Structure formats: C-alpha cells, structure tokens
C-alpha cells in the first residue's frame, strides 16, 4: 500500500487508503476504529455511502483494513467521545 495510488481509485478509495496508511502502524482493530472515527468526523455522508457501495460491490482493490473500518459504521460502533473533542482542521 505504500507505492502510490492506483489510477483507477475513486476519490473515496484514495482518501480511505490515505487513512489506512496513516493508521497502519496500530493494532488492526484499533486502526479500524481510528479510521472509522475519522471518517465519521470528517467525511460528508455521500462520501461514506460511496465507499460503502464499493464495499458492497466487493471491490477487491479496497484494502482489508478499510473494509474492516467500514463495518464500524454499519455497527455504529465508533468512539463518540472522540467526535466530541474539539476538532480542528
């Protein structure tokens, strides 16, 4: 995942994979939660829906960690406390 963006990535995939790279150093579940939290905090819903649509279609170009993080949206299982902190940026 470190050798550049695939040319056929949609914007959501590109942004999602940026998050994967940013959190890849964390243990898998923690990373998935961080990515899900970030997406909940900063992504407009249509972007999230576009990503979910890709996942539902079974797009194999999606990184498994991104797919795992998306399960947290489905479950609604993200750290709301984090969203409540001042946000910045």
């Amino acid at each position, binding site marked *: 995942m*470190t050798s550049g963006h695939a040319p056929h990535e949609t*914007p959501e995939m590109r942004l999602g994979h*940026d998050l994967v*790279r940013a959190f890849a150093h964390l243990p898998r579940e923690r990373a998935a939660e961080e990515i899900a939290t970030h997406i909940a905090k900063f992504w*407009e819903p249509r*972007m999230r829906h576009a990503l979910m649509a890709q996942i539902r279609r079974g797009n194999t170009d999606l990184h498994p960690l991104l797919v795992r993080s998306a399960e947290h949206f489905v479950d609604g299982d993200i750290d709301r406390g984090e969203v409540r*902190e*001042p946000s910045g940026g």
Partner: protein
Amino acid sequence: MSIAAETDYGTPAVAARTDVTVTIDGHGVTVPAGTSVLRAAAEAGIGIPKLCATDSLAAFGSCRLCLVEVEGGRGTPAACTTPCADGMVVATDTDDVRALRRGVMELYLSDHPEDCAGCARGTCEIQALAVRTGVAEVRYGRGGANHLAEDRDESNPYFAYDPAACIVCSRCVRACEQIQGTFALTVSGRGFGSRITPGATDFLASECVSCGACVQACPTEALTETSLVALGMPTRTVLTTCAYCGVGCSFKAEVQGAGPDTRVVRMTPWKDGGANAGHSCVKGRFAYGYAAHPDRQLRPMVRNSIDDPWQEVSWDEAITRVAEGMRGIQERHGVGAIGGISSSRCTNEEVYLVQKMVRAAFGNNNVDTCARVCHSPTGYGLNHAFGTSAGTQDFASVEQADVILLIGANPTDAHPVFASRMKRRLREGGQIIVADPRRIDLVRSPHVEAAYHLPVRPGTNVAFVNAMAHVIVTEELHDVTFLRERCEEVEEFLHFIVRPENSPEATAAETGIDADQLRCAARLYASAGNAAIYYGLGVTEHSQGSTMVMGMANLAMITGNIGREGVGVNPLRGQNNVQGSCDMGSFPHELPGYRHVSRPEVREIYESLWGVTIQPTPGLRIPNMFDSALGHSFLGLYVQGEDIAQSDPNTQHVEAALRSMELVVVQDLFLNETARFAHIFLPGTSFLEKDGTFTNAERRLNRVRPVMPSLVGKDEWQVVCEIATAMGYPMSYADPAAIMDEIAATTPTFAGVSFARLDAEGSMQWPVTEAAPHGTPTMHVGGFVRGRGRLTQTVYVPTTEPTTRRYPLILTTGRILTQYNVGAQTRRTPNSTWHPEDILEIHPSDAQMRGISSGDVVALSSRVGTTNLTALVSDRMQPGVVYTTFHHPVTGANVVTTENSDWATNCPEYKVTAVQVTVATEATRAAYAGREAAVRG
C-alpha cells in the same frame, strides 16, 4: 478621523524594574531607569530639538541639536545619549544651549535646498527646527561647497532619494539595520563628503527590499514616497489593518477626499500596532494600488453559459438569480447539491455570515475556506496535541527565544515584518536552526548565520522531526518532569521514538540530512533555555502535514518548551485572516470556535438563535466538492474571494469540476481565473472599504476600518445577507459590530470581544474571556487547553508521489517577497517591477545534465500536466529539488501539482510533486501559448 499625529519620544522606551525621577525645566518626571533625557523631556511634554534621534532607533548622538545643560555637570551633553539619573536637574532652553543649536542649524541649512518641497508640505523637520531655533538666515551663505546639484535616485517605484535634501543623520541607515535588518544602506565617504548609498548601485538594483522603514525614519525630504509627491499631503487618517499576510500589521491609511472620491496618499505603519510596532513590508506599505485598479469589476454580471459574454445587471437581479439558481438546484438534486467557499481575505464578520448562510439558508454544512489548502493541518494537529487550533505565542515572544527552530517557512519573503523581529533577536544572540530544502535568506544573510541548515528533502518532514525527538530522548535531554506533570500517552511515545528506525542515521537516506548535523541541532534545541518552533506551509502542505504538526508538538512537549514566553509551536499563517476564517466555523465539520457539528449542545446554541435545524453530519471539503461535482451530486457553488481555479492543485481537475456545475457564483474584486467558469459575478470590496476584524497568526483581533465607502454599492456582508434572505431565510444586521456581537455571544473564546472593546484596547488576542478580559498572549500556561498535552506516535509514511525515471525531480513551491499568493492584488501594482514572472530554480548539476542555463524557457511536467517557465540555475536548491512560486496565472504552477493530500485534512500536497524539467520544445511552447491565450482572454 483627522490626521493622527504620533508623538516621537526621540529614543525607544526602556523596560526597567526601577524608576528614577528627574527635573526638566522645572518639571518633575519619573521614568524607568536608563531612559534618555530626551525621552523623559518628551514624556513631560517638553520637546527638545533633535534631528538624528527618533524613538524607533537607538540613540546615535550625531547631530548635536539636542544639547542640554545638567546641573552640576560639565558642558552640554546630548539629551538623546544621556540617561536620566535620579535627582538630575536639566535645563533645555538656556542662552548657551540656544546659541549652540542655532550654529548647528545654520550649518545644516547652508547645505539644504531653499526650495525644498518638504518645507512647503511641512514634512521636513529641518524647516520646523529652523523656525524653532530662530535661524532666519544662513550666515555662511549657500554658495559654498554643497550637495544641491546631485542626482535624485528614482529607481524605486515607491520612493525617491534626493541627496540634495539629505543631512546624513543616518536615520535611514540605522532604520535599515535596526528595524528592517537588511543592511542595504551605508554612509560612504567621510566628513563633508559623506553620502548615503544603497551600495554601489541604485535603490532598485540594491539589496533594498523596499520596506520603507528608511523613508519613514528620514526627517527631511531626502527619502519621500512618490505618492506623496504626486498627490500632496493627506487630510485625514484611518487606522486599519493590512490585508496581505498573517502578520496583520496595523497601518494609518493617510488619505485625501471623502466618500467614493477618497484617495490613499500613503500607508504608514502604526507605532502602537500590536503585531508590527511601526514596521511594515513592501506589500502592506506600498502595494495597495490594486484597490483602485481599472481592472476592478464594480457591477454585478450574469450569463447563462460560461461561453456567453457577461451582461451587467442590477444587484437585485443578480441576487435573485443566485437565490433562484441555488434553490432550483436543491429542488432537482437535493439539499446537499450546493455549497459555499469563504475567503481568508475577508473579515471575520463576512466569513461568519458565509457559514451562517450555508448552514441556515442552504441547510447543509457544505462550507469550506481556503485554509483547507494551507493551514488546515495546523488546526488538526495543534488541536489534537494541545486542544486549540492556533499558535501558542504572540510575536513578541520571539524576543525571549534562545533558539529558534524554523521549519518549512521563509519569513523574510512571506512574513517580512515578523522576520525583521526574528532577525533582531538573532543579532542580539539568539540562534536559529533552519530546516528547509532551500538555502533561504535566514540561513545566511547580513548579520544572520544559522547554527544549522538541515536541507530536508520535501516529503520527509516527519522522518526528520522524529529523528530530532529520537536524539533528545535517547540522549536523555527530555524534560521528564514536564512530561509527567503535563502530558499523556508518554510511555507509548517514548517507546515508539527510541526505536532504531527513527534515528538520524536510519532516516538520513530519506531526509537527506547529515546525521551528525541533525544530532547537533537536536541537542541545541533541547538544551536551550527557551526554544521556539516557527513553521509555515513547508510543514502543512504534505501528505503527512497533520502528522508533522503533531511531531513538532511532540518536540515542544518532550523538552518542556511550551506554556511560557520564548517557546511554543507557532504557525506563520499565509493570509491576513486564515486564523479568523478557521475560528469562524468555516470548516464543514465544525461550528465557530472549533466545535464539531455532531455536538447537540453546540448545534442547539445556533439552532435556537437562528431558528433552523443544523445538520449533525460534516459537509464537503473543497476537494470533495470538486470530486462530487464530477460525480454530478454537487452542482452549485458560491465562492467568496478565492481563486480556486488558480490556487487549488491539479488545475485541469478543478477546471473540469467547475465546468460540470450548473451554477458558479464568484464574488471578487476582479474577474479572476475562477470567474472564467462562473455564471454570476458579484463585485467584492477591498480592505479599504471593509468594516470588521482580521485575526492574525498570533490570534490577535485587529480592527479593519473603512477608509472609503464600498465602491460597488453594497458591503460584502450585506450581499450575503441578501442572498440568504432571497432564499427564504431572512438575515439582517445593523452593522458589522452587531455581527461580532453575535459571534461573541455564541463562541466562548470570543466572549469578551466587541468593536467597542477593540477600539479601546487597540487589539486583543483570543481567548478573550472573563478570566482573560484583555486576551491571552501566551497559551497553555500551567496546563493545556485540552487538559494534558497529547503525545502522538508520528509514524513516518512516505508520500505516494515518489520520483520515478520519468519524473525524477521533486518540485516544491513557495512565495516571493513582492508578490502575494495568486498575485491578483500585487500583480496590479508596481510590485511586479521586482518579480514580473514565476521562475523555476534548479540546482547547477540538474541544470547541466539537462543542458539548461539561467534564462532558458523550460518545460515543467508532472503526471498531470505541463507548463513553461524561465529557469534560474541556483545553488540555493539541493540537487534533485526544483522550486517555483505560484503568483502568475500564465505559468500556472498548479497545472502540474496533483490531487495528493494530507491524510487528515485533505490539504493538498503542494510541496511535493514529481516532475521532469526539459528545455522547452515547439510542442510545449504551443501548449503553453494555448493556455496563455485562455488565461489572458
């Protein structure tokens, strides 16, 4: 306001713990010990004649006009160089003193033109002093040797030097040294033959950066603004704030006339300006002419398609078309199909209303601001670490710094007035470490020599900052007590940072920084009494921009360099109101004061006040707007004062997005690049017409006061109100002060702010609260805003923009002193004399390999586009890295930048683009000519 006279106390104020009391001409006056007799007299209302002294400069004692008698003392000492001693009794106007002064004045007048225009204007101090000292005629005659026939130097477009009027008091030379720190002027020759020269050349070709400090310091007509000569004396003054960079200098706009016929004669920096203390740069002082430029579009215009010609219409018609167009799109495509972009060039009040219009009238959170493309990672990173999306210090703090770590910023070009302050500190013994791919002026310039220049390769900042922290922790230079008492996630961080992959040796191949140099720099930073970090877009505009901001916060926390004067983590903000536009809730995920839209208790504040429901989910950021436009779900955009088609990355992508929209509304001074894709153009107002506030990089709210009424018939905040109202959401305010009152009532950090209080205090730094009623110069004293400071494991992730055989060089971008951002303002002033085009700087070895010489036209290509530029072969660059500015639309540096962005904020990775540079061919020239034709229209 009439002309605002500022008292010149003759010598600078002295900060001392003890006071002394002296008697001057029978008046007792108490001053801090060390104060000159000249200043003490001025404070007592006694004006001792003076010529070489002025209170912005250290006393020099050369003109001998300020002579006084001191009881019990010998002779007649100069009041400017004589410090007050307790109990001293001074006489300033005895017969002896008067006679001596008359003699001195006669000598000056014998070599001073009789027809001096300054006498007529009343700007020449000589004339006034001649009257005061009673010199009616010159006993020596005017026929002797003199300088009256020497040539004027009119090379600088903004001021002229007339040697005939020069009295060689050297105020200009000292201003250039002490205030500006450029050392461009010298006194050449000796005695009668001594003259002021800008080196062996004229002003334009010299080292002079046209800051105007010498012009302001000159007591005669010798250095005078060209505008003053052309227009004559101003008749009134308005105190306002510069609209260029994030320093936010205060100015006296000195003007003639009234109403729409008002003309600015000159801008003079305000001595009591909190940010600038009487100094300015060439942009703020001189480059205001764009506001009256004939290119300004003063009437609203509409067209059905972007291929149609524009048609001027009334405001009512334009606003109705905006409202109907936007509502129509929402009816067809949904509430979220429209949005707005606010500008850091606008006031807090204007920006606040744009986000209110989007949230209340558009009914969504699709509002973003141009900070997205510059300092959004600052907001994210500092907030994550400290709990506040802002710099930690005031500018004056740098005067207490022992070591300055400057990363990815070039203050002498981009933040010149702050750079002068920084250089003064360096001359006084402060040290500087410069981490930058280029050898910028602060690495070496007159009287400045960086302790270390770490030429970090673009894209590897995080590896660099981690290596700094690695050295500090492994060599046990970290502040264990500070970490224990004030920080969290400490153990995790320490465990992470000591890992061998973070060592300078392990990262050297990536960063390009010599490991030994980095170790020494880290030790210097960690062992300084006060170490302060200053940074710019060379930090933020990276795919790891936010990570790097957190990395710098780590560095400050592990060394305890936060929470007092002289330390901290300080963003140098690019635009005048970047800080303010972020504070005002311009981001799509947060309401004013950086409070997330998902928080019901925050939404409730605005919902009850505005009478609407606010969406609890984030809106689209600028890049998401473009992507959604291309995906046909975003079709209407209102853009206030930002030229997204020129300033945002990957121009082709932006242009395609704009073309695909149904309604683009641009509000601006000029028909900018974005207006090429607009359907409705609404004229904007310049800073000279605005009433409001700007917030600078040190969180300082400064008043912007209208010098003249709006030249377009409406104020920008009114236009926003009228659009909202026409869309069915009535919005109105009595004046901008009422808008600030609403901001203060709803945003805790602004609770104590009002126009009245700002007018009384001059300026205030937020938070302004009950606990800090006068504002907060230094943040996080005694504790962080978020409680404990958070350390973050800032893992280095290489950019996805690697160099390849096809694109083997890295392009990085920056600014030059005389131009500003996309150049819309500065290109419409004589500032283009210095920088008429963007230049590509390339290292000699890279140039030689490609057969490129300085002055060649070269093609610059990346995987997304190609442009042409003129090359400058320069060893300021390191091999493998090329550099250009982005001030000119014809070159369009963003034609080659890509859609890569910061993982957290989508701030574009402007600073890293893999490129190739070749000598331009027929084909690239033809492609460029096509672009030039389109841009120039």
